[in-house]
C-alpha cells in the first residue's frame, strides 16, 4: 500500500519531467494536462501512502517487510509503527501542499524582485523547473523510506537521498552566488551529519548480529560507555539535521536561499527527521541516562530562547521564519528531554506526556511552519521583496493569504484555540507533572519558565511580522503592486490552515494516536498498568475532552461576540451614529505618511535591548534612520574562523607540492628511513 503510494508520487515526478519536456516542443501540447497530471498523481500518491499510516495510528496492526541479504550487512527491513506513521502523515500532508503550491509558484509569472527565485531560471532552463518538481517527488519518497526503514543501510541511503535532493532543491536558483554558498554550507553540514551517523551505527553495531534495527536493539552495549557513546553521536548527527543550537548555523542560510515551497518542506519536514532519529534511537535503546535527558532539556531551552530572540532580530521574512524553526525545535527538545527524564527516573506517565507533546508539536510545527513559509512565498512572489521593512498593508491586496498567514501565526505562537496551543499544553503538563515528583528531576519543571519566555517572545515576533507585513499601509511601491496569488497557491495555504484549526479545535481525536506513537518511544514502560490506566482515563479522557470544549467554546464566544459587534456597529438609527471612515488619528499631526509607521527594527528594539549580548545584532542608528542587522553568532563567530584556520594550514603546506624532483625523492627516502628506524626499534629479528 505504502509502496503503491510512493510509486505514484514518483510517477508524479516523472509526469512533471515529461510535461516540461513537452514544453520545449512547439505549442506546448501537454502543458495544461501535464500540470494537472502532476498534481493529481501527487495527491493520489500522498493519499494512498497516508492510508496505512492512518490505519496504524488508529490502532491497526504494525507491519514489517523483509528483503533478504542484499549486502553482507544483513537484510533490508522496513516497518511501519505508530511513530513512523505520525511522521509519514506529516510528510504526505506537507508534501502534497508544497508540491501543488510549487507547481503554480513556478508556473505563474512572478515579480522580478531582489529575492524572487523562480522566474529568470525558468526562462533560461525549462527543464530546471521540471527537475525541481521531480526532485520534490523524490524528496518525499526518500523521506517516507527514511521513516519506515528498519535497518542501517536503507536508513542511511534514504537519509543521504533526502540530503542530496534537498540540496539540489535549495540551489534551484543556481545563478546566485549566495545561493550556491548557502547550498554548499548546507551540503557540507549534512554530510558531516552523515559521517556522524556512520560513526553512530559503527559503534552501535559493534556486537550486533547484523545491521537491522532489531539486532541493534538486542545489542548489549558497554554498561557505562555504550549508550553514552551512542546517544552522544545520535545527538550530534540528528541535532545537526534538526538544527538545535549551536548546530543550527546552516539552517537560516539554507532555508532563506531555497524557493519558498522548498523552505516549507525543509523546515516543515526535513529537519523533523532529526527529531525522528532521536526518538527512534530512544525507542531502540529503551533506556535513556539521566545526564543525556538533562543535556537535551538544556539544549532545548537554549535553542528555544536563542532561536526566537534571533528571529526577532531578523527582517528578512524567510530568515525570520527559519530561526523560528530553531525555536520550535527547542520546544520539541524540551518535550523530548522531559520524556527522557521521565524514563530515566521511572515516571512512565511523565515520559508519555513529554514524548507525546514533542511528537504533537513536531506534527503541528510541520503544518503551520510550512503554512507560514508558503505564505511568505506568496508575498515574495507578489512583491519581489523579502525585507519586511519595505512591505505593509498587504491584507487588503491579498486577503486570503493574509488570513491564512494570520491563522498560522496564532498557531505558532501557541495561542488557543489552535493546534500550537494543544501541543505546548502537552509539554507544559509534562513540565508541571515532573514538578510534583519527589526526586531531583523535579528541578526540570523550571524549564516551563523558558517555555513561557519563548511564548512571550514569539508573540512579540509574530505581532511584528503580521503587523508590519500585512497591516498598516504600504511602506514601499513594491507593496502597492501586490496582487492576490493564484488559486493554485492559495488553496494549499487554506488547506494547511484548515488542518491547524482542525487539530486545534478537536484535539480529542488527535491525542489518542499521538499517545500511541509516544507509547512506541516509551517502549516497555508504557505498558505498565499505572500508565495505561492514567493515560486512558486522563490524557485522552477528560483533559482532551475539556480542552476540546475550551477551544470550541472560545471560538463560539468569539463568533457570538463578532455577531453582536456587527449588530452594534452596523445598526444606524440616526445619522450621528453612522460608521465613518477617516485616516488614522496622528495625534494632531496633519499629514502623516506611510514612511512614518513604526518599523520592524524599532518594534523589536526594546525587547532585543535586554538580550543584547546574545543577539549578535549590529545597530545602525542616525537621526533619520534606525536599522538593525542580525547575523548568526555561531556561524560568524565560530564555524567560519575554524574553516579559515584550516585553509591557512592548507596554504602553508602547498609549497611541499611545488618542490623539485630531488625533494620528492627525499620524501620517499625519508619515509623509508623512518620505517627502517621503526624496524630497528620494533626489534630486528624477534
Amino acid at each position, binding site marked *: 500500500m505504502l509502496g503503491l503510494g510512493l510509486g505514484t508520487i514518483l510517477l508524479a515526478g516523472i509526469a512533471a519531467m515529461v510535461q516540461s519536456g513537452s514544453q520545449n516542443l512547439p505549442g506546448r501540447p501537454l502543458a495544461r494536462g501535464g500540470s494537472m497530471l502532476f498534481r493529481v498523481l501527487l495527491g493520489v500518491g500522498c493519499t494512498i501512502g497516508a492510508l496505512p499510516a492512518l490505519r496504524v495510528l488508529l490502532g491497526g496492526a504494525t507491519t514489517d517487510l523483509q528483503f533478504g541479504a*542484499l*549486502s*553482507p*550487512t544483513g537484510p533490508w527491513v522496513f516497518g511501519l509503527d505508530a511513530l513512523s506513521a505520525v511522521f509519514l502523515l506529516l510528510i504526505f500532508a506537507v508534501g502534497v501542499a508544497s508540491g501543488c503550491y510549487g507547481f503554480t509558484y513556478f508556473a505563474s509569472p512572478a515579480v522580478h524582485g531582489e529575492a524572487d527565485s523562480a522566474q529568470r531560471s525558468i526562462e*533560461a*532552463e525549462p527543464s530546471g523547473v521540471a527537475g525541481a518538481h521531480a526532485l520534490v517527488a523524490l524528496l518525499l519518497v526518500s523521506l517516507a523510506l527514511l521513516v519506515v526503514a528498519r535497518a542501517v*543501510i536503507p536508513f*542511511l*541511503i534514504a*537519509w*543521504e*537521498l533526502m540530503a*542530496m535532493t534537498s540540496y539540489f532543491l535549495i*540551489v534551484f536558483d*543556481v*545563478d546566485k552566488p549566495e545561493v*550556491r554558498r548557502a*547550498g*554548499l554550507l548546507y*551540503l*557540507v553540514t549534512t*554530510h*558531516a551529519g*552523515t*559521517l*556522524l551517523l*556512520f*560513526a553512530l*551505527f*559503527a*559503534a552501535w*553495531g*559493534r556486537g550486533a548480529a547484523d545491521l537491522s534495527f532489531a539486532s541493534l536493539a538486542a545489542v548489549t552495549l558497554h554498561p557505562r560507555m555504550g549508550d553514552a557513546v551512542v546517544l552522544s553521536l545520535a545527538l550530534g548527527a540528528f541535532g545537526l539535521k534538526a538544527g538545535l543550537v549551536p548546530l543550527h548555523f546552516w539552517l537560516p542560510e539554507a532555508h532563506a536561499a531555497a524557493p519558498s515551497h522548498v523552505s516549507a518542506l525543509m523546515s516543515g519536514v526535513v529537519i523533523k527527521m532529526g527529531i525522528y532519529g532521536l526518538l527512534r534511537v530512544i525507542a531502540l535503546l529503551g533506556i535513556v541516562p539521566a545526564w543525556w535527558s538533562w543535556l537535551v532539556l538544556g539544549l532545548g531551552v537554549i535553542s528555544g530562547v536563542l532561536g526566537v530572540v534571533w528571529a526577532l532580530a531578523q527582517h528578512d521574512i524567510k530568515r525570520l521564519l527559519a530561526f523560528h524553526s530553531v525555536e520550535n525545535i527547542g520546544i520539541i527538545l524540551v518535550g523530548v528531554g522531559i520524556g527522557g527524564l521521565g524514563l530515566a527516573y521511572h515516571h512512565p506517565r511523565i515520559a508519555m506526556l513529554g514524548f507525546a507533546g514533542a511528537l504533537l508539536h513536531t506534527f503541528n510545527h510541520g503544518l503551520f511552519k510550512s503554512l507560514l513559509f508558503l505564505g511568505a512565498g506568496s508575498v515574495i512572489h507578489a512583491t519581489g521583496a523579502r525585507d519586511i521593512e519595505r512591505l505593509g498593508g498587504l491584507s487588503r491586496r491579498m486577503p486570503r493569504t493574509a488570513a491564512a498567514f494570520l491563522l498560522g501565526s496564532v498557531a505558532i505562537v501557541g495561542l488557543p484555540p489552535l493546534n500550537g496551543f494543544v501541543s505546548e499544553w502537552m509539554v507544559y503538563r509534562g513540565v508541571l507533572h515532573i514538578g510534583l515528583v519527589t526526586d531531583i528531576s523535579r528541578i526540570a519543571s523550571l524549564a516551563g519558565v523558558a517555555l513561557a519566555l519563548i511564548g512571550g517572545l514569539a508573540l512579540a515576533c509574530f505581532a511584528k511580522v503580521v503587523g508590519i507585513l500585512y497591516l498598516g499601509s504600504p511602506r514601499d511601491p513594491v507593496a502597492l503592486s501586490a496582487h492576490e496569488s493564484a488559486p493554485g497557491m492559495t488553496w494549499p495555504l487554506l488547506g494547511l490552515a484548515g488542518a491547524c484549526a482542525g487539530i486545534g479545535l478537536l484535539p480529542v481525536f488527535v491525542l489518542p494516536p499521538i499517545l500511541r506513537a509516544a507509547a512506541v518511544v516509551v517502549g516497555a514502560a508504557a505498558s505498565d498498568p499505572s500508565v495505561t490506566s492514567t493515560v486512558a482515563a486522563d490524557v485522552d479522557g477528560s483533559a482532551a475532552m475539556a480542552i476540546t470544549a475550551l477551544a470550541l467554546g472560545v471560538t463560539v464566544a468569539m463568533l457570538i461576540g463578532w455577531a453582536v459587534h456587527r449588530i452594534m456597529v452596523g445598526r444606524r438609527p440616526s445619522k450621528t451614529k453612522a460608521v465613518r471612515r477617516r485616516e488614522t488619528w496622528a495625534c494632531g499631526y496633519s499629514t502623516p505618511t506611510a514612511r512614518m509607521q513604526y518599523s520592524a527594527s524599532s518594534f523589536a528594539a526594546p525587547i532585543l535591548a535586554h538580550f543584547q549580548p546574545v543577539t549578535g545584532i549590529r545597530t545602525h542608528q542616525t537621526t533619520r534612520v534606525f536599522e538593525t542587522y542580525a547575523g548568526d553568532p555561531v556561524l560568524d563567530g565560530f564555524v567560519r574562523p575554524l*574553516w579559515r584556520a*584550516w*585553509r591557512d*594550514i*592548507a*596554504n602553508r*603546506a*602547498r609549497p611541499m*607540492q611545488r*618542490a623539485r*624532483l630531488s625533494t*620528492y*625523492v627525499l*620524501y*620517499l627516502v*625519508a*619515509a*623509508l628511513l623512518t*620505517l*627502517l628506524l*621503526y*624496524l630497528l626499534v*620494533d626489534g*630486528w*629479528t*624477534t
Partner: protein
Amino acid sequence: MRLLALCALPLVGALLAGILPNARTGRIALVRLALLVGIALGHWALVASLWVTPAPSIFGGWLEADALGLVVLTVTSTLFLATAIYTVGYLQRETPRGGSLFVSAMLVFLGATTVVSLSQHLAMLWVGMEATTLAVAPLIFHRHDRRSLEAVWKYLLISSVGIALALLGTFFLASAQPEGVGRPLLLPDLLAHAQALHPAWLRAAFLFLLVGFGTKMGLAPMHTWKPDTYGEAPSLVSGLMSGALTSCAFLGVARITEIVMAAGLGPFAQPVLIGFGLLSLAVAAIFVIGQSDVKRLLAYSSVEHMGLLVLGLGLGGVGAYGSMLHVLNNGLTKGWMFLVVGNVVLATGSSAAASNRGLVRTIPISGTLLVLGLFAVTGSPPFGLFLSEFTILRAAVAGGHVWIAATMLLFLAVIFVGMAALILEMALGSPAPGQRRVRESGWLVIGPIALAALVLLLGVYIPGPLNEILTRAAVALGGTAP
C-alpha cells in the same frame, strides 16, 4: 588455458595494432579501434567466465586466478572495457600522433595488469608491475608538450625508484626463504612455509615492498608524482592509472601483507599500514583545499582512497573485506570520474575550474554525472564507496581504535568540503556568457554511465558470488567477512 589467453590476448592485440600502418584517420584507424574494443570485450568475457568456472593454475602454479587477483582483474578488465569504448570517441575528437602507439600501449598496459593480477610468483608480479609503468609512459606523454613531458619525467623517475626498491624488497624476500623450503618466491609455497621464513628478512622485505609498491599506489609521502601526472595525462589515461594501475600496485602490497600475516607478523605490519593510511588521508585533506584543477583534485582524492585501502588492510578484521570491496568501488568510480572529466576537457579544452562553469547546462549528461560522481567518490550513500568506507570504519571501531575512526571521519569530512567546493562550482555555477550547449557523442558517455550504474548497484546490492570471493580474499589477508 584461459589464463594464458587472458595474458596473451592483449599482447597479441598490441602487436597487431603496432604493425598496422600508422594512419590517423580512415579505415585503418577504425580497424585499430575495432581491434581495441574487440580485445577489451574478449578479455572481459574471459574474466567473466572465470567467475562462472574457476580456471586451473598453469606454469606450475605461476599463474592462477585466486580471490585477490580475481577482484583486481575484474576491476581492471571492466574499467578497460569502458575506457576502450570511450577511446573510440576520444580518438575521433583528438587527432593523436601515432594512434597506433596509443592503442598498442593501452593493450600492453592491459596485458601487464593481467599478468600482475594473475601471477603467483612475486618476481613475475614485479615484472608485470614494471611493465605497467613502462606501458603507461607513452600514454602520459601523449600530447608531447613540455608540461606532459615534465609529468612523464617525474612519474618515470619516482616510480622507477619505487620499482627499484620493490625489487630490493623481492630480493630480501628471497633471502628470507631458507634453502629448499618450498619453491623460491612462489606465493603458495611462501604461504605454506610462512612460519619458516626468516623474520628479519621478511620484515625488511615487507617494508621495502610496501614503499616500492606504495610509490606506485601513490601513498603519501610517495604520492608526489600523482597530481602532476594525472593532471597532465589524457583523462582516460588518468582514469586507467587511478583505477587499474593503483589497484595492481595495491595487489602487490596485499600479497606481501598476505605473507606477513601468515608468518604471524601482523602486530609488526599493521601499525605501518595504518600509519600510511592516515598519513595519506591527512595529505589529501590538506591538499584538496583550494585546488583549482579538477584532475589534480581527483589525484588527491585517489591518494585519499589509497590511504583508505591500506588503512582497511592494517585494521584487519572486516577491514580487509572493506578494502577488497573498496578496490572494486574505487577503481570503477575513479574511471567514471576521469572519463567524465575527459568530456569536460573535450568540451572546453581545460580541466581548470576557472574555465568550466555551469557544466550541467553546457554538457548536461556529463555535468550530471560529474555531480553524482562527487557524491560517489566522497563515499555518500547509496554509492558503492559508502559501503566499503563504512565497513572500514566498522573495522576501526570494532578493533577499539576509536581515535583512528575519529581521525578518519574528520579527514573524510574535510576532503568532502574541498571536493564539493570545486566540483559543485564547476557543475552548477553560471556558464560563461555565450557558452553554448555542446553535443556529447554516445561513445563518450556510455562508458561513464555504465560505470556509474555499476557503482550504484554495488552500493545497494552485493551478489552472492562476489561476496564469497571478497570473503575469501579477506580471509587470505587475515580478515573476516562482516
